[in-house]
């Protein structure tokens, strides 16, 4: 009774060309305290290319969100995972980035990144998102994209967790059931995995991943992680995107 998880990031070919590092950051984990129900958390952040320390911002965002979950683990299990919880989590992320930028004598904008988060128990699912990238989830009625990826008028514009109005643009979705399948990805994967004109999940993209996860054993998770990283760097993917790319997936195992 847990989720089988796998997550990886890979540097985009445009970053390889200019010798810049991967500015995506991600973390997927399941808390398995035997005394409590399992808690799934997935966080993905994509550092803005225009920000001097976007990659660092993304790492800080993941750290801050993970710390927040650690502190509010019991609360997450005992109380509803709701909008209020999401706002507090994003505020914790912002506080960490603002503190770090102030300490470095830089502007928070220099650490701009997107933020996508999933927190789930066997009885509830919370999705939160600022910026582009996407969260595709099946809470019992098929693969859906509950939150539309955020974009401005132009293809190279989106919202960041460091923006003044981040809390206003924060999108939250809650469900009173667990995610049977869930995938979180950065914008480098977006155009491969979503039908952009309808803002729906392109199910055939996800099917093979979920099929493997459904039957994988805990012992295979490391191997799967290496396989996912290999896939993200494969020529078939690089022909379609030159951006950094992150994909994190989880499948419920009875």
């Amino acid at each position: 009774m847990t989720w089988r998880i796998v997550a990886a990031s890979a540097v985009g070919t445009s970053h390889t060309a200019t010798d810049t590092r991967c500015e995506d950051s991600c973390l997927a984990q399941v808390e398995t305290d035997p005394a409590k129900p399992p808690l799934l958390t997935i966080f993905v952040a994509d550092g803005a290319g225009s920000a001097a320390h976007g990659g660092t911002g993304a790492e800080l965002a993941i750290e801050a969100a993970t710390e927040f979950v650690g502190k509010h683990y019991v609360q997450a299990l005992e109380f509803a995972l709701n909008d209020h919880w999401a706002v507090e989590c994003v505020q914790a992320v912002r506080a960490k980035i603002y503190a770090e930028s102030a300490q470095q004598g830089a502007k928070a904008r220099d650490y701009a990144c997107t933020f996508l988060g999933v927190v789930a128990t066997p009885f509830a699912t919370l999705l939160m998102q600022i910026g582009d990238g996407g969260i595709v989830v099946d809470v019992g009625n098929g693969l859906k994209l509950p939150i539309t990826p955020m974009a401005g008028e132009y293809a190279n514009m989106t919202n960041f967790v460091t923006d003044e109005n981040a809390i206003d643009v924060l999108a939250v979705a809650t469900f009173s059931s667990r995610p049977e399948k869930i995938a979180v990805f950065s914008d480098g994967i977006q155009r491969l995995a979503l039908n952009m004109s309808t803002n729906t999940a392109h199910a055939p993209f996800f099917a093979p991943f979920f099929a493997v996860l459904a039957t994988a054993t805990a012992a295979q998770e490391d191997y799967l992680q290496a396989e996912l990283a290999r896939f993200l760097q494969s020529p078939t993917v690089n022909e379609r995107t030159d951006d950094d790319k992150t994909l994190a997936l989880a499948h419920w195992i009875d």
Partner: protein
Amino acid sequence: MTDQISFGTTEFADNPEPRCPCLLLLDVSGSMQGQPITELNAGLTTFKDELAADVLAMQRVEVGIVTFGPVQIVLPFQGAAAFYPPTLTAQGDTPMGAAIKQGLDLVRQRKDEYRANGISYYRPWVFLITDGGPTDEWQTAAAAVREGEVSKSFAFFAIGVQGANMDTLKQISVREPLRLDGLRFRDLFSWLSSSLRSVSRSTPDTDVPLQPPQGWASV
């Protein structure tokens, strides 16, 4: 350990590439006759060749050309792959104001087409190249350029070839107009294609840092 698991997919969503429109407003008035028009044509060929060397740019960059005078849509917007540089000939006066208005209309129409078809796009670039000064009413066009820059509807660049009225260009273009060194159109278009390549592969940002125009321009 089962090394046989095949992980990953070849089933990708079929989404159109985001487009990066670039409109060229080219002065083909009588004063461009001779070497200038020859070099401009050679520059357009360089432009095509350098875009063609980049797979993503070929899929994303769109080129449109309006010449003046008289004002003529030589090339409506089309993908770089289908862009075959025309051979321009010099003739007529310099109706720059009307050409700018025509060009901005084309940009607006193209954006509408993108939106109607669910295609995402980058901020359009409008590139004005002239060796003279407007022979028509240009103040309305200048106001439209200013308004478009403020609302970030497009980015407008002006390049003056020798003989250009730089003072008027300054009143039209919000960005500082650049003066082309000699007839270095090829270097100019080489810079333009490399800049468009950066834009067409920019990740979510607000601004794309452009390389300074080197070897072909001065302010």
